């Protein structure tokens, strides 16, 4: 029968597990390299993996400088988005009228093209790191707030009755039941937010910045250095994956009951 093999996270198994994917990656890179070499495709049109690797290595200090700026924007933006999302969802849950007033806006504003609004933010807030963080906050806020709100809505009314029967206050119901019940939903919202956060910071840098991976990307592109454009893309991907992985790890650490619970219930 189909039981989960509990040994699948032991090291050799992990290697074995990713071997096919790694093999595929190597083949892919080899084909790419050989194609570029064979057809002598110019570097500004399509650089080879080795050229990209060299570009990464040669500009690693510059890239790291830009990466730091992007990390600051992303981390602050994501952090503030979490704080804001938690606050808004909490208030909306505790005060049903505020929910009725703001919920439709929450849903509709999710579809506002924030990147299109971004230049206006720059105009009003001036130039600096603030509007960039704000854009990251806004983009990350919606998935977090909306998932958390859904999670705070208790589907299991019996749990509510249990607490009520014990004479729990509204606030105790919130902190003891609704809040932990909403954690998995919060983290799944965070996963989406994390995946998009770096990209958002990069786009907001295009709209005006002197530092950041978005700036590096644009400057490389404007200097016709396509190999560095690829290096920038790799750095952005790695950074995005880093945030994504952090959320996954945090989920495992902070919600030890969740992964198995989900599987068994």
């Amino acid at each position, binding site marked *: 029968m189909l039981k989960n093999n509990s040994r699948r996270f032991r090291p050799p198994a992990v290697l074995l597990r990713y071997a096919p994917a790694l093999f595929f990656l190597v083949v892919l890179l080899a084909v790419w390299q050989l194609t570029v070499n064979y057809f002598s495709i110019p570097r500004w049109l399509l650089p080879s993996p080795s050229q990209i690797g060299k570009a990464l290595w040669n500009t690693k200090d510059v890239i790291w400088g830009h990466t730091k700026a992007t990390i600051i924007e992303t981390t602050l933006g994501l952090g503030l988005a979490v704080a804001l999302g938690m606050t808004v969802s909490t208030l909306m849950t505790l005060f049903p009228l505020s929910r009725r007033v703001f919920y439709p806006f929450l849903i509709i504003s999710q579809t506002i093209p924030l990147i299109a609004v971004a230049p206006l933010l720059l105009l009003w807030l001036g130039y600096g790191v603030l509007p960039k963080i704000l854009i990251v906050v806004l983009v990350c806020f919606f998935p977090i707030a909306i998932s958390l709100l859904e999670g705070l809505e208790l589907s299991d009314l019996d749990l509510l009755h249990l607490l009520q029967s014990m004479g729990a206050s509204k606030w105790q119901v919130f902190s003891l039941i609704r809040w932990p019940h909403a954690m998995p939903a919060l983290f799944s919202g965070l996963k989406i937010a994390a995946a998009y956060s770096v990209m958002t910071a990069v786009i907001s840098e295009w709209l*005006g910045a002197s530092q950041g991976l978005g700036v590096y990307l644009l400057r490389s592109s404007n*200097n016709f250095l396509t190999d560095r454009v690829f290096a920038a893309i790799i750095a952005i991907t790695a950074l995005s994956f880093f945030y994504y992985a952090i959320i996954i790890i945090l989920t495992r650490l902070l919600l030890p009951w969740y992964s198995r619970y989900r599987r068994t219930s």
Partner: protein
Amino acid sequence: SKQAEQNSVQNNQPVKLTLMLDWTPNTNHTGLFVAQDKGYFKDQGLEVNIVNPSSQGTLEQLVATGKVDFGISAQEQVTSARLSDLPLVSLATIIQHNTSGFVSLRSKNILTAKDFEGKTYGGWGLPSETAILTALMQKENADFSKINMVNIGETDQLASLNSNIDLTWIFYGWTGIQAEIRGQELNMIWLKDIDPALDYYTPVIVSNEEMIQSNPDTVRKMMQAIGAGYEYAIGNPEESAEILIKYAPESDPEMIKRSQAWLSPQYKADAKQWGVQKATVWENYSKWLYDNKLVTKMMDSSKAFTNDFLPTR
């Protein structure tokens, strides 16, 4: 503000200013980085933060609102902004003549505006692009509506010519030099050759009306330092190229050196002083726009630019 200026002077503190570029740091900006590197700003008691651009038209608005003090713009943008009531003023032209033009692959044999019909033009979606192409076509009795206007944003313009773009508008001092490096053979129609009115100033250094009225001394010191920077760049192409590379480590050194060698003689060109702007150039372009019915009113050129803050010797 004036208050701040006086305070700073009293305290012997440098005046903090922001200058925003119009694009990725390039050889148009060399004088600015020289001024920074050689301490010309500091000598004037200024602390200048050179920041990078905000694309999509917000640069002009940021300067207009005073969110940044100075910016790099162009005569076309200043004209368009002033017609929209933005209080922008041009303080100096970085290059005396328009070094831009329309390029196409030599193999496509596009030599005059007549040949533009049925072709695809790749640009930024700027109002001046439509304006100039329309006028140019009219002059040669060609039909502008037969051009397919495509916005290609920040992509590699030269590479786009190998794709389905036939025609694009480049600055020779940057993209033209890249084409030389690649060995890509191009036909170029220079704007200044099309019509004298199109030999306008691009790029220019701008600030806003409030700034020049309330802090004239600061503006004057700023221009003094910048002027010195460009004078150095005119005299020392190789050294100034190295300075630019130092401040823009993301750029391609070979490209910067070749570009600088080409551009250094162009900054001042035939003028008696770097940065000086002629009223006729501002008037002619504005009139040309009006005559060609590209705008519905004339801009008051006298308010759009001033030579009052240029360096004194």
